[in-house]
């Protein structure tokens, strides 16, 4: 359980830092565990991110889940801004959705706990 929670907080750390580095403004993070599934929602206000940039990020975050990589490499998360960090997050989550709304970027990540 502890490892599971640490992995969730590492993902949240990575995305939070990424969004704050992109735009240092109000940011809300919600983490909702429901059984084995955890939903993470990030809302970054006054974002200057373009649709193209968001699409590129969603492409990285929606890479296929790879348990073999996650088990080993998840400790690399937390040093945000590094070029491959989002790729590590992508390997650790099942789906990522996002959109821009009134200058805010809304990102939703879903991760299911797998043995």
């Amino acid at each position, binding site marked *: 359980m502890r490892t599971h929670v640490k992995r969730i907080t590492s993902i949240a750390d990575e995305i939070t830092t990424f969004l704050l580095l992109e735009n240092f403004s109000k940011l809300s993070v919600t983490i909702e565990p429901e059984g084995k599934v955890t939903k993470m929602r990030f809302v970054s206000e006054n974002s200057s991110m373009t649709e193209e940039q968001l699409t590129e990020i969603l492409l990285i975050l929606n*890479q*296929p889940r*790879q*348990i*073999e*990589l*996650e*088990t*080993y*490499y998840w*400790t*690399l998360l937390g*040093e945000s801004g*590094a*070029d*491959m960090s989002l*790729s*590590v997050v992508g*390997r650790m989550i099942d789906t990522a959705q996002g959109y821009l709304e009134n200058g805010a970027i809304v990102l939703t990540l879903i991760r299911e706990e797998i*043995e």
Partner: protein
Amino acid sequence: MEIFNKLKKPLPNRLRVTLLLYFPLICFLGVMIANDPQAFDNFIKIQLSPAILLTDYLAVGGIAGTLINVGLIALMNILLFYFLKLPYTGLMFAAFFTIFGFSFLGMTLVNLIPIYLGGLLYSRYAKIKFRSIIMLSVFAGTLGPVISHLIFGYGFTGIFAWFLGIAVGTLLGFFVIPIARHLLKFHDGFNLYNIGFASGIIGIVFVSVMKSLGYTTQRVVLLYQSHNSIILALLFISCLYLMTVGYFAEEELIKKWKLILPISGRAISDFTEPAGFGATLFNMGLVGLISTVLVLILGGVVDGFMLAAIYTIIGFGAFGKHPKNMWPIFTGAIISSLVLGLPLSAATTLGSILFATTLVPIAGVYGPGWGIVAGFLHVFVVRQVGDFHGGLNLYNNGFAGGLVAGVLIIIIQTLKGGEK
């Protein structure tokens, strides 16, 4: 050309296992060509070797005996991957070819099985599936000499020696997984051979304990040091085979391969995802070919040590290495070898130059200038640190690379104003 283009199609998943089966098969073919009546006896001789770095099995057991060892280890791993239903990822290729190469230089069936057993026990203990950590167990074969040396090298005898070797090997296989994971943060994924770094530290602790108890470890340099056409053919055909399969498995090969070049190489850089399976195989063959040609141009001999280095590069050609991030490392390592007055054709020098590519992420992230610095520093460090663990860690360059990366990235980040 049009005919070749028509033949091109993506390789189906069920056929991917056959891609790797080629490697043990070509080894067994090499055994038949070598036609050595002593082949099986020599294979047994290799199994009973203390396996300390640098023990080139071509020198211990000849071509045929070595190829039996390499072929059986490759086959064992392919079957394991198959039954565990592992996906064909960059990490899997890196693990497979690393172990394939090091089966020429220190890994045997005897010293690998206890490490895998330790990994299996760890997965049970941590309540995770074995397939989640099998890659780490494969890489952890670097600690094989600890087991072989306990059974055949320290002077213990009989059942006790076997019990001790297997028990310690299983324990190391168990603990190397959390230790390696933890030590990844030391260099932030800038050293590709991280298990080598972790195993170097484990090796230092182990050697210190043994030394305090009165058991010393003597380094050896036992190299084959002569050209052999079967070995050269094995290497060239391996590279060309990967490039050819890559060519036929990818419709827009060069376009896809170019997607690999901007990738930094820092963990996790799995090329199979952005560039596809075919372009990844092509890149693996290409970096292998470049490394082989480099060895021959510098006047080196392709022996077991070189095979370990080149096959490891081939494997990581799917997980971090490509020509664009390799050349600065090669350049820096060659310059420092010249500064130190090392003969470029010597196996130990060439080994340092080739294995220095563990630091390609530095060139990929911070540019070729820092890549040259990393390669330059690596040769200085790797020449000194092998004695620390007494040659019990086969990935000595991974250990040195971890130290170089851990220090250098802090220097680079400080100079770039990372604290601001």
